[in-house]
């Protein structure tokens, strides 16, 4: 459905995107995960034709040039920066962007009402956007991308600067869209979001895709082993029999099968004061791919 071939974009001397290729299938939620400055926003803007790549192509539904009107109608974008008219009300913003996307009459009314509901702003729909909190603006920013009911939605950090409650609200709505069969491109630097939402994730750094797979596939390939960390009640009788690193009563074990190992250790007569199992996640994947943490 969306295909990018060898996209490249530089700003002056900064190489923002450096030979990026990817294919996004219809109905999938595709995550672009990367630290600040990785080139996620630049990539999104090239995908929607708002930025022209220095080289490379973008195909949407097999056709080049995402700036054609029939393609544009299918796209909804929730930009990273809040892109709303501060002096207009929530409803006026939605109506305006609806009209810009060829909605009118009863459909416009219906979709505006839906979008207000989506953003959870029913009570504030006649308030000007400048009076909104950051989270409310974020929700409206996303709703404006959806008012014309596009099948393809690009969300550039839709949860940035949002409290956990608002974030949860946004998440539930996005999951509903996903279940509805929309194609979603989602950028974030919160790995837990990508893990929860995305069918496939591309891990980006310095304008390049380091790895691209399902979450499980990435973890299996790059996550390494699970880590068991335990504090024992007393030092084990036979320290040598334990396959791990023992330091007094602190035990650390790396393994592919953490639950079986814990069971085996308990069987061997160890009693745990505390026990933690760290399973590899996208953070670990990123760490192992780049030697750096996703966010510091």
């Amino acid at each position, binding site marked *: 459905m969306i295909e990018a071939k060898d996209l490249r974009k530089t700003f002056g001397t900064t190489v923002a995107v450096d030979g990026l290729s990817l294919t996004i299938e219809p109905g999938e939620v595709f995550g672009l995960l990367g630290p600040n400055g990785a080139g996620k926003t630049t990539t999104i803007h090239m995908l929607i034709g708002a930025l022209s790549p220095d080289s490379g192509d973008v195909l949407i539904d097999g056709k080049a040039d995402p700036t054609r009107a029939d393609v544009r109608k299918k796209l909804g974008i929730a930009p990273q920066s809040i892109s709303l008219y501060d002096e207009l009300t929530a409803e006026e913003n939605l109506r*305006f962007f609806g009209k810009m996307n060829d909605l009118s009459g009863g459909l416009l009314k219906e979709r505006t009402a839906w979008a207000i509901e989506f953003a959870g702003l029913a009570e504030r729909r006649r308030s000007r956007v400048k009076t909104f909190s950051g989270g409310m603006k974020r929700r409206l920013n996303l709703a404006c991308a959806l008012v014309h009911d596009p099948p393809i939605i690009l969300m550039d950090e839709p949860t940035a600067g949002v409290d956990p409650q608002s974030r949860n609200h946004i998440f539930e709505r996005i999951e509903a869209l996903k279940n509805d069969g929309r194609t979603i491109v989602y950028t974030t630097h919160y790995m837990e979001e990508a893990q929860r939402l995305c069918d496939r994730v591309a891990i980006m750094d310095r304008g390049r895709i380091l790895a691209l797979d399902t979450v499980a596939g990435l973890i299996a390939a790059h996550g390494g082993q699970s880590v068991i960390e335990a504090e024992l009640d007393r030092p084990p009788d036979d320290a040598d029999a334990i396959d791990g690193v023992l330091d007094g009563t602190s035990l650390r074990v790396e393994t592919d099968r953490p639950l079986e190992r814990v069971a085996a250790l308990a069987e061997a007569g160890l009693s745990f004061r505390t026990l933690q199992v760290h399973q590899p996640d996208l953070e670990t994947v990123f760490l192992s791919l780049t030697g750096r943490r996703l966010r510091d």
Partner: protein
Amino acid sequence: MGKVFTLALKDLTLLRRDLFAMFWVVAFPLVFGLFFGAIFGGAGDGARSAMPIVIVDQDQTDGSTAFIDRLDASTAINVEPSDDPEASRDLVRRGKRVACIVVRDGFGKSFGGMFGGESLLEITIDPSRGAEQGMLQGLLQEAMYRSVIDRFRDSTVARESSQSSIDSIRADEGIDPIQKAILLTFMGSLDTFLGTIDPAMYEDAMTFDGGGGIETVEVETESRGPTSFEISFPQAMMWGVIGCAAAFAISIVQERTGGTFLRLRVSPISRAQILAGKGLACFLAITGVLVGMLLVETLILGVRLGNPAGLVLAVVCTGVCFVGIMMLVSVIGKTEQAVAGAGWAAFLVMAMLGGGMVPVFFMPRWMYMLSHASPVQWGITAIQGATWRGYSFTELLPSCGLLVGVGIACYVIGVRVLAITDR
């Protein structure tokens, strides 16, 4: 086209809700126009700004009276009679009056010294009012000339004077005999002419164009010059126009940095449509300001509407010009601050040079020449031209042509630059 209107409507709503912009667009021009109109105007016919002068008539003849009446008729000066030359000169010295004029004995007899060597008019002028000196001298000469003509209009009076001149020339021993002969021949034939012509026909001939045509026209321009509101309002209107252009230039860069422009670019509309929407909104705002100010001017302040159709043209051309300038200013910088700062700086220069603050006719010559390069001046010229100056279409054409031409050029450049920087 529907979308362009939707875009424009959105922008006008935003403008209406932006108090800062509304101040520049509505409040400031109105206050500017009324304030400067009021302080420079008063009654508006120039009476209050008339030069106060004091006149001492030592001659006390018909001639001197006619001369003083003439001066008094001018609206540019305010004549006050006095008997005491010393006290009158002192008034000037102390700055209470602009000038003191002493009409010396013999003035009437010699027709204001026109046919005599000695000066029969003494002028004392306040040295700090140098600018008015030339004007005053012009007025005095005019009055003198007029009163002489008036008197000559009566052929018997004219004849008396020609005969007395002949007598005094004859009696004068100091004149070179050849000169004397020439003068006597000339005065003699004048005397014969005056003695033989039908008095009614003579009077007709002396009144030029029946009823003193030249006289009337000149007096008219003086007394029916622009009222101060007619000067201050076109200036004020241009401030409103500038306010609109600045507000919209800033709104373009705001949309570009804020991301709403991105949203629009991803909508099924072209960049040309987006910018046309901006242009249309700006144009409507500008014409709205101009029409509003013109209504105040004509309905409340009674400003003359010389060429209504021409005024429509002037308003439209001014709108086109400043929409173009707005578009160009919007790409001066990439941030709101840059555009607001550089844009206002450019607009202020344009306004100052173009007579938006000091009317062009008060400017030193070099600045007056520069003012021709300012769109603000073209706008003021077009609007003044179509209102109280009563320009014809042909006369409006230069300023209107410049407005439209430069407007379109700026628009095209602005759109091009935006297309290049926005990729």
